[in-house]
C-alpha cells in the first residue's frame, strides 16, 4: 500500500494515541534524515493516523517473516517502503526495536540507499535517469515537461503529494534514453508529449502498470518485459545468447567428471571475470573450493551500475537460465547450498520474470534438493533487491548489502573467497562471467581458447550508445579494433569514445582508433559511449565527476573528499578561471585519489579527468587563462570583498537589533 493523503487533524490523532505519543510522532515526522526541520504542514500528521493503523500488526509480521534476522534488513526496509510509500522514522523505530538495533543503526542503512526515503516521496515516485546520453537526447525538455505536468520540482513533491520527482543515475537503458522509472515500472524514449500523456493518465487514476502494460500481460512473462523495454542485440555469438541449451545434460556431465576437472577446464580456457577486474575465474573457484567454511555461497553480481552499461540486463532478459546454470555449476564446484542474485533496483521489472525462470529451473530439478536426483546436492537461489547504490557493484560492498548493511566496501584481505557472505567463503561472479562459464563447459576449453587474443580469450559484450546509427548490444571478440566496432555500430562523426563507462577511459578516435580491445590494450568492461565533434566533452567529464561525488560511500578520505575537489576543478576550467597550476593539481590530486582509495570506485573515479587530459589536452588548454599579478585567476577579489561587506552589514544589523532589544 502506498502513502496517501487522508484529511485528519492533529487533534484527532492526539485523541487516538494520547498526547505524549502524538507529540513524539509529530517530532519524529518533522525531522528528515539529515536532522533538518521539514516544512510544517499538516500532511505528515494526516499520514500518521494511517500509519498507526498499519503499524498495529504489520511490522511484527515483517519481522516474523524474516525471523528477526538483521541480515535481511534490506528486504524489511523494502517491505516498509511498500507499506507506506517511504520509510517513516516511527515505523523504522519499531522495526529496529524488534531486531535489537538502535534506531540510528537502522537509519545508517536506510540513508545509504537512494531509493529509500525518510519522508513522503509522492503517491507516485518518478525517477528520471540523468545520464550524459539522456542529455544528448532531450533530457532537459523531458525534465521541464515532468516538472510542469506533475507540479513537482526535481528533488521534491508537488503540493498535493501525488508526485515525487527525482533524478537518478543511469538505469541501464542508454540505448533508449530518456527514461524514467515510475515506482516499479519503466517508461523509455520519453518526449515532452509522452510525459504529458503519462502524467495525465496517472492523474486520471490509472496506475503506472496499467499505462505501461495496457493489455495486462502477466508480469512473469517475457512479453511483459519486452513491452516495457527493448532488448536490442545486434551482434551475438559465438559465446553469448546461444540456443538451444541442454542444461541437465551439461550439469550431469560436469557432476560426472567432478569439480577438479570443471575448474581445470575453466582455468585452461583462461576465462577472466567480466565484472571489471579481469581476475581468473578458475582460480577464484579453486580458492573458494579450498577455503574452509561451515557453509559456502555463490553470488551473482547483477548490480550493473556503471553508467552506459546494459549488457547484463540483456543477458538476464534473454539468457537467464544460462546465468542460473553458471551459478549451479559454481555451487557444485565449491560446495554451496545457497545462491543469491543481487539485482539492482533499477531492474525491478525483471524480478517476476526471473522468479518464474527460477521456478522452471526447479521443475527441471536443476535447483532444489537432490538436484538431478543426486542425493546431497542441494542448492537454491534467491533474488536480493538492491536499493540504489553504485558502490555495491564492488563485490565486498555487495556482500555487505546482502547482509542488510550499508554498502561499504570491506577492507581486503580477507577476500570474499575466504570470508564473504556471513563470514563464509563466497564466490561472487558477474552475470556475464556466469554465462561464459556455462558456455566454456558446453564447448570446452580449446574452443574458448581459440577465440580472442593472448591474455584475452573469448569475447565480450558491449553496450553501445551515443552518436551512432545502431545502439544496442554487440558481442565483440577480443582483439577487434575500436575502428572496426565503430564501423559496425554505424558511428556518426565519432570524436571521442568513453570505454567502460565513467570509471574507464575516454579515447580520441583519431589517436586510438586502431587500438585493440583486450586486457593489454583497451580493457573494455562492457560499454561504449560515442560522442561526435559537436559534444561538449568538459561538461561530460563534469557530469561523470558529479556521479562519483554522489556515489562515493564516504568510508575513506581520498574518495569522499578528493572527488569533490576534482569536480570543482573541472567547473573552474569550464568557467574559464583556471590556469596551468589547476591542471597540474588535477593530475596530482587525481593520482592521490586513484592510488590511496579503499576500493575501485576511488581507484577509478579520477579517470574521466586523467584520460581526457591525456587524449584531449586541447579542450583544457583552450579554457585556460593567464595569471595576472599575484592573485590566482580563480580568486575573485571583487566577490570576496562583497562577501565580507555583506557579512559586516548583517552583523551590524544584528547588533543594532540586540541593542534595541536590550533597551526595551
Amino acid at each position, binding site marked *: 500500500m502506498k502513502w496517501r493523503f487522508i484529511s485528519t487533524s492533529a487533534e484527532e490523532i492526539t485523541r487516538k494515541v494520547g498526547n505524549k505519543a502524538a507529540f513524539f510522532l509529530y517530532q519524529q515526522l518533522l525531522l528528515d534524515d*539529515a536532522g533538518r526541520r521539514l516544512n510544517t504542514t499538516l500532511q505528515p500528521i494526516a499520514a500518521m493516523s494511517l500509519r498507526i493503523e498499519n503499524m498495529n500488526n504489520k511490522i511484527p509480521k515483517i519481522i516474523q517473516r524474516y525471523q528477526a534476522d538483521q541480515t535481511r534488513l534490506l528486504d524489511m526496509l523494502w517491505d516498509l517502503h511498500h507499506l507506506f510509500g517511504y520509510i517513516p522514522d516511527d515505523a523504522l523505530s519499531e522495526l529496529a526495536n524488534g531486531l535489537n538495533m538502535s534506531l540510528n543503526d537502522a537509519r*545508517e542503512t536506510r540513508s545509504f540507499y537512494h531509493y529509500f526515503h525518510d519522508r513522503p516521496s509522492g503517491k507516485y515516485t518518478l525517477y528520471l535517469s540523468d545520464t550524459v546520453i539522456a542529455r544528448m537526447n532531450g533530457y532537459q525538455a523531458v525534465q521541464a515537461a515532468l516538472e510542469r505536468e506533475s507540479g513537482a520540482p526535481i528533488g521534491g513533491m508537488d503540493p498535493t503529494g501525488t508526485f515525487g520527482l527525482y533524478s537518478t543515475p543511469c538505469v541501464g537503458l542508454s540505448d533508449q534514453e530518456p527514461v524514467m522509472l515510475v515506482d516499479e515500472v519503466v517508461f523509455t524514449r520519453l518526449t515532452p508529449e509522452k510525459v504529458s500523456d503519462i502524467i495525465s493518465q496517472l492523474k486520471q487514476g490509472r496506475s503506472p502498470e496499467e499505462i505501461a502494460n495496457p493489455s495486462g500481460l502477466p508480469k512473469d512473462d517475457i512479453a511483459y518485459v519486452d513491452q516495457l523495454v527493448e532488448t536490442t542485440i545486434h551482434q551475438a555469438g559465438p559465446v553469448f545468447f546461444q540456443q538451444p541449451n541442454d542444461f541437465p545434460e551439461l550439469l550431469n556431465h560436469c557432476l560426472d567428471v567432478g569439480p577438479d576437472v570443471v575448474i581445470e577446464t575453466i582455468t585452461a580456457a583462461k576465462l577472466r571475470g567480466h565484472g571489471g577486474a579481469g581476475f581468473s575465474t578458475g582460480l577464484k573457484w579453486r580458492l573458494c573450493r579450498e577455503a574452509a567454511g561451515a557453509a559456502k555461497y555463490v553470488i551473482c553480481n547483477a548490480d550493473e551500475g556503471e553508467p552506459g552499461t546494459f549488457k547484463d540486463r540483456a543477458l538476464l532478459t534473454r539468457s537467464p537460465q544460462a546465468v542460473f546454470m553458471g551459478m549451479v555449476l559454481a555451487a557444485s564446484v565449491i560446495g554451496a547450498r545457497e545462491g543469491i542474485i543481487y539485482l539492482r533496483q533499477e531492474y525491478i521489472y525483471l524480478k517476476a520474470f526471473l522468479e518464474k525462470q527460477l521456478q522452471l529451473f526447479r521443475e527441471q530439478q536443476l535447483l532444489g534438493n537432490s538436484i538431478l536426483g543426486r542425493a546431497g546436492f542441494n542448492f537454491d537461489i534467491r533474488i536480493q533487491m538492491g536499493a540504489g547504490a553504485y558502490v555495491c557493484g564492488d563485490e565486498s560492498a555487495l556482500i555487505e548489502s546482502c547482509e542488510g548493511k550499508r554498502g561499504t566496501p570491506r577492507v581486503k584481505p580477507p577476500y570474499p573467497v575466504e570470508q564473504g557472505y556471513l563470514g563464509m567463503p563466497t564466490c561472487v561472479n558477474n552475470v556475464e562471467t556466469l554465462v561464459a562459464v556455462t558456455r566454456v563447459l558446453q564447448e570446452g576449453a580449446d574452443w574458448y581458447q581459440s577465440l580472442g587474443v593472448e591474455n584475452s580469450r573469448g569475447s565480450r559484450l558491449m553496450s553501445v550508445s551515443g552518436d551512432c546509427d545502431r545502439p544496442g548490444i554487440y558481442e565483440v571478440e577480443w582483439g577487434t579494433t575500436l575502428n572496426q566496432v565503430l564501423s559496425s555500430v554505424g558511428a556518426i562523426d565519432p570524436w571521442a569514445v568513453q570505454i567502460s563507462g565513467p570509471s574507464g577511459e575516454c579515447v580520441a578516435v583519431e589517436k586510438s582508433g586502431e587500438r585493440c580491445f583486450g586486457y593489454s590494450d583497451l580493457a573494455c568492461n562492457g560499454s561504449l559511449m560515442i560522442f561526435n565533434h559537436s559534444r561538449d566533452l568538459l561538461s561530460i567529464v563534469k557530469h561523470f565527476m558529479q556521479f562519483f561525488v554522489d556515489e562515493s560511500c*564516504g568510508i575513506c*578520505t581520498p574518495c569522499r573528499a578528493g572527488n569533490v575537489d576534482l569536480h570543482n576543478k573541472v567547473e573552474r576550467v569550464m568557467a574559464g578561471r583556471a590556469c596551468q597550476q589547476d591542471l597540474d593539481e588535477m593530475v596530482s590530486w587525481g593520482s*592521490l585519489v586513484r*592510488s590511496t582509495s579503499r576500493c575501485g570506485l576511488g581507484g577509478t573515479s579520477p579517470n574521466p579527468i586523467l584520460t581526457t587530459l591525456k587524449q584531449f589536452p586541447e579542450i583544457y588548454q583552450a579554457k585556460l587563462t593567464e595569471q595576472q599579478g599575484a592573485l590566482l585567476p580563480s580568486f575573485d577579489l571583487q566577490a570576496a570583498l562583497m562577501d565580507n561587506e555583506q557579512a559586516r552589514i548583517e552583523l551590524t544589523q544584528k547588533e543594532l537589533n540586540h541593542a534595541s532589544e536590550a533597551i526595551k
Partner: protein
Amino acid sequence: MSIEIIIDGESVTTEAGTNLVDVAAENGVYIPTLCYLKGKPCLGTCRVCSVRVNGHIIAACTLPVSEGMNVEVNAPDLLDMRKALIEILFVEGNHNCPSCEKSGRCDLQATGYELGMVVSRFPYRFPLREREVAAKHLWLERDRCIFCQRCVEFIRDKATDQKIFSIRGRGTTAQIEIDIALADRMPPEQVREAAEICPVGCIIEKGVGFNDPIGQRKFEIQSVRERALDIKDSAAESGHE
C-alpha cells in the same frame, strides 16, 4: 612463522601476518595513522598510513605482512601523499585548533605537525555542520569529525551491544550521529573511552575541557611519532588511557 621483509631498504625479521604498521614501528619506522588502533580490527578509513608495497600503494594498516615484501615508507612521493591526506581532512571539516578542547591531545593536529603541514593545498570548504548537544555526558562537535569510524565500531552499549554512534547519509552528506538514550546510560569510563578514542575533537566529554595546561598536553609531553614508536605505549592506548 618467522619471515623477512624489506622496509625502506633495510631487511627486517618478523612474524608472518603481523600488521605492517606494527612491524614498521617495532623497527623504528614511523607510519602515521588516524583510524588504526593496535589490537582492534582494522578500519582502513583514513588512508593516512599509505605506503608502497611491491610497487603498489596500499594502506599499511590493512596489510598483514608476508615473506619477501618490499615496503617503501619514506619515499618523497609517499611522504607528500600522506601529507596531502592530512591536508584534505583539514579543509573538509572546520578545524580551528587554537579554540579546540582537544588541542594538544588531537591525533589529526599532532600528525599535521609531524608531517610538516603548514597550510592545506586544497581549498577550504567551511561546511555548515550542526553540533549535537542533547546527550548528558558528551557532545558531538561535527565540524571536526573525520569519519574514521572508531566510535561507530568500537563503542557499543554494554547491555544490548547496540551501536551508540552511527553515520547517517553517505559521501558528502554523511554525518556522525549519537543515540541519546544509549549515550545517557554510558558509564563514566565508557564516556571517557569514547572521547579518547576519537582522534579529533568531535566527541567531547562535557565539563572537562582544557584540563592540561599548554606545554603539558599529551603530544607535547611525547610527540605522536615517539608514541607510535614506543610499542608499550601504543599497546596501552588500545585499552584505556
